[in-house]
């Protein structure tokens, strides 16, 4: 679990230190202050494997670029700007762009050993004293199969393909009935859900009662699609970390309480650490109420603010402070 993080010179952050992170971490702040950037920083960290030697992938960077609507012809430029420095728990991580001529002799040696052809450009990842490198190559750009996307929910409406992929993971784990129970919390009229191949496209089909009808996911409201995406993502990331950008998007405010109750139950049962951004007061209040109802206190809130010199700093509240502040009616967004 990520308990603390220090981000240096990433996006708008000069030096941002966060401590006492919890199982559910809710990130708020004004528009363009860096909520999504912070989420991305956690996401990049989570994508690095720390074994005997480190292993990092370019895919998370590419997923972020995709989420930010960076088109394929601008992706190389985007990667050339990568300069990411972060300390999380005991790991000091530095990921940045280097051309071949900027590499040290040691790094050139590693390149020779690892790859059997020449590359001009690289993303280099340093973790403590360890080095790992990925060449920038057209093969890396927008990969078809990107596992990292299965833990990151961006702020827009999910596409059918992604929903089906996520639901397939639920099927593989045999969690369909559990999933359905949580889904009924949002809409008790949902009877059953299953994938369907329709006109060469994979979709999710939902059978409803009252009135009795059958709809594919694209015919459902954004809220239901979003909720399905959240449930599937959580249930397929047992013992992992999940990132949700603007959690409330599409979900009706009357359903936020039930949504948070379902989320709290799943993160406890599946041992998931969750990072979410929000700028919605009702969502924060719903989390507060759901946590009190469920006696769940593993929550931290992080509000990003700017000081008089425009430097971004965090206001981190532990659970008791979060509850006291939200209960009092003070706006923590």
């Amino acid at each position, binding site marked *: 679990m990520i308990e603390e993080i220090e981000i240096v010179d990433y996006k708008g952050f000069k030096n941002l230190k966060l401590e006492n992170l919890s199982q559910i971490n809710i990130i708020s702040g004004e528009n363009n202050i860096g909520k999504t950037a912070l989420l991305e920083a956690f996401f990049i960290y989570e994508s690095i494997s720390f074994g005997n030697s480190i292993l990092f992938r370019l895919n998370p960077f590419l997923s972020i670029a995709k989420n930010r609507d960076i088109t394929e012809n601008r992706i190389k430029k985007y990667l050339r700007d990568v300069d990411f420095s972060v300390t999380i728990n005991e790991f000091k991580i530095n990921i940045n762009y280097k051309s071949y001529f900027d590499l040290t002799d040691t790094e050139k040696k590693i390149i020779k050993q690892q790859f059997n052809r020449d590359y001009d450009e690289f993303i280099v990842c340093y973790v403590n004293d360890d080095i790992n490198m990925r060449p920038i190559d057209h093969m890396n750009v927008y990969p078809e199969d990107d596992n990292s996307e299965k833990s990151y929910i961006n702020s827009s409406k999910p596409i059918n393909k992604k929903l089906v992929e996520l639901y397939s993971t639920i099927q593989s784990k045999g969690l369909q009935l559990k999933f359905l129970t949580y889904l009924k919390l949002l809409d008790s009229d949902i009877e059953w859900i299953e994938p369907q191949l329709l006109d060469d496209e994979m979709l999710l089909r939902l059978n409803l009662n009252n009135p009795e009808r059958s709809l594919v996911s694209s015919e459902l409201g954004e809220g239901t699609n979003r909720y399905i995406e959240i449930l599937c993502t959580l249930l397929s990331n047992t013992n992992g970390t999940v990132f949700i950008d603007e959690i409330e998007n599409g979900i009706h405010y009357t359903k936020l309480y039930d949504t948070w109750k379902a989320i709290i139950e799943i993160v406890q049962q599946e041992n998931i650490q969750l990072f979410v951004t929000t700028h919605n007061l009702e969502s924060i*209040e719903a989390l507060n109420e759901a946590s009190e109802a469920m006696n769940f206190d593993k929550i931290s809130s992080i*509000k990003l*603010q700017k*000081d008089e010199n425009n430097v971004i*700093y965090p*206001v*981190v*509240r532990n659970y*008791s*402070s979060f509850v*006291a*502040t939200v*209960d*009092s*009616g*003070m*706006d923590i967004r």
Partner: protein
Amino acid sequence: MRVLLVEGITDVNLVRYIYSQIDEKFDFYDFVPPKRGNKSKVITFENKRNRNFKIINLKGQDNLLFTLQEILKPDEKNIQKIAIISDTDRDFEASKQSVLKAIEDSKIDKDKFSIFLTPNNKNLGNLETLLLSSLDKESISQLQCFQEYKKCLKEKIADIEKRAIDKHEVEAYIKFSQKPRNRNQAQFSFIDSNGDTGLWDLSKKEFKLIIEFVETIFK
């Protein structure tokens, strides 16, 4: 952020009333309570015109340290000023020390604080003492009657508290002024649905100190 902490809803409304007179653009209802009701331990009134201005109703001085530690301390960097209006009740020095101890225990920078002890930073009392001191009792019929009633209360009930009598006297003044539709609660006595009740005259010298104090926070 500039925050004013007060003991109860009457104090909140007096501060809102004073604030509304600071500038013609300011309004009593600029400070709004949360939509979700008032079951919580303390209540924040946020200023919709200037979100940096806040009044917190502590619902009693016992919640001062809780509010400082749990609500304000995490956001200390963003706070320019914390003002506290507190009653002095029976022991001026003890009341002052109690506020100072809460400030000390909160570990918030002491330079950010200012304190006003009602009624006037030197005498014993509370908000009702301050309100009553601004009235010309000789010219208000119900308060003349109240003096006899007060004598009787003191004779018949040995341990009756001055605070209780003061509250009662304020209620009698409001109730029989017939202004806010016979309501007798002090919290409704500043502004009602018809606007300014005219029950309290902020130009009276007794209000000078508290007005200056509120101005240092919200002007």
